[in-house]
């Protein structure tokens, strides 16, 4: 792990001094938290105030929506990262691109109707994304791991939505009241999401550490839940990376890292992915590897590379519908181009 990333994580968790130079992408992500921790890096105050404003607008709008839906017995569940704002010092510490909501089973039509009534609009080809005039956005989910976009993702670990609903909890998030997942589901979701997106945002590892520090976390239950959902490897990978960053893990988490230490190939892959987290899609490939069976790995990889057409058209929003048949050849070219870029990256680093 790069020493700069190590220092960034340590600074974000209040464990040390910030690095002298912060990459702009990481500053966007962690600048608010640095400011709240007392680090006066350039631009941090502005980011902090900007984050506070946007988060307050988003949460107020979503709470209003959830309150109305609660009256119709259709209140959605607030997912991480918005739900995890409660773990941070205040509302200006952690930016979020959009607010993710888990729709109650069978209630999607009511939720969409309420969103429309509240002035949220879905852009073309994105039926689950809703944007308001002020730029705030909501992403609707009917499951926790986006199997509606890539159905084979279930093979790499799955939290049954109905079971997650049965474990839901009422929480205060920055002074607003929401339904959220239980802490164990949130932890697993954070780990799985971070892996799939190649740990692009350090905020996800900060999220994980803060979640693990919650007093409600029961290690034995968390582990058995991770194994039963098939997400134990995603959890271990995230813990291994966090431990390598010099962050002191809870003793039980450190023991897991020793007992479940990944093999050499996976360890090297993790290190590579984290070092190139902003450029690589290696995390998505490694998440395919977490499938138990080889057949499942192939199926997931195939569907990731060539998802169904409606999902692929979201990747190419400017492709006119009449040219939709070109989406697959374009995807093939994109994969080849991406593969060559990754090889070039590997060659440059050597």
């Amino acid at each position, binding site marked *: 792990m790069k020493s700069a990333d190590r220092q960034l994580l340590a600074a974000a968790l209040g464990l040390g001094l910030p690095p002298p130079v912060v990459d702009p992408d990481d500053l966007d992500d962690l600048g608010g938290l640095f*400011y*709240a921790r007392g680090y006066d890096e350039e631009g941090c105050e502005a980011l*902090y*105030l900007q984050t*506070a*404003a946007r988060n*307050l*607008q988003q949460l*107020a*709008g979503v709470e*209003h929506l959830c309150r109305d839906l609660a009256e119709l017995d259709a209140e959605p569940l607030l997912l991480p990262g918005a739900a995890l704002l409660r773990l941070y*010092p*205040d*509302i*200006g510490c952690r930016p979020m691109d959009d607010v993710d909501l888990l729709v109650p089973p069978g209630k999607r039509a009511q939720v969409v109707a309420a969103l429309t009534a509240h002035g949220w609009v879905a852009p073309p080809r994105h039926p689950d994304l809703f944007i308001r005039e*002020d730029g705030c956005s909501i992403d609707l989910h009917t499951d926790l791991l986006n199997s509606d976009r890539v159905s084979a993702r279930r093979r790499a670990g799955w939290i049954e939505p109905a079971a997650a609903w049965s474990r839901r909890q009422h929480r205060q998030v*920055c*002074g607003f009241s929401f339904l959220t997942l239980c802490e164990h589901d949130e932890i697993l979701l954070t780990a799985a999401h971070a892996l799939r997106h190649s740990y692009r945002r350090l905020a996800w590892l900060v999220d994980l550490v803060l979640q693990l520090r919650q007093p409600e976390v029961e290690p034995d239950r968390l582990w058995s839940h991770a194994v039963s959902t098939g997400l134990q490897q995603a959890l271990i990978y995230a813990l291994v990376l966090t431990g390598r960053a010099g962050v002191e893990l809870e003793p039980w988490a450190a023991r897991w890292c020793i007992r479940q230490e990944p093999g050499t190939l996976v360890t090297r892959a993790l290190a590579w992915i984290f070092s190139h987290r902003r450029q690589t899609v290696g995390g998505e490939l490694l998440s395919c590897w977490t499938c138990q069976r080889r057949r499942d790995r192939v199926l997931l990889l195939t569907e990731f590379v060539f998802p169904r057409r409606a999902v692929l058209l979201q990747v190419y929003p400017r492709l006119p519908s009449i040219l939709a048949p070109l989406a697959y050849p374009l995807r093939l070219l994109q994969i080849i181009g991406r593969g060559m870029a990754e090889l070039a990256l590997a060659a440059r680093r050597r």
Partner: protein
Amino acid sequence: MAVRSTMDPVDGRCWCRRQGVHYRPLVEGGILYDEEGGQVHHLNGTAALVWESCQEGATLGQLVACVCAAYEASPVQVTEDVAAALRQLERAGVLR
């Protein structure tokens, strides 16, 4: 010594927060979001304390006493700052 006009519009009134305005404290000061107007206002330390003290309604004198206690400052120093904060919050439409 600054002389306050006896016709100061902020004096003699009981200031209350308007409904539908969200407030959250920050590291320094606080932030307001007016859901009705869609506007966000950043408050410095004094303005944040004024806002927090207006929950049940407060007069200028009561607010000055609050701020004096919090900052260990004299009323003379504080009164103009509190009055200015009240005027700004009134102009923003979040206090009445």
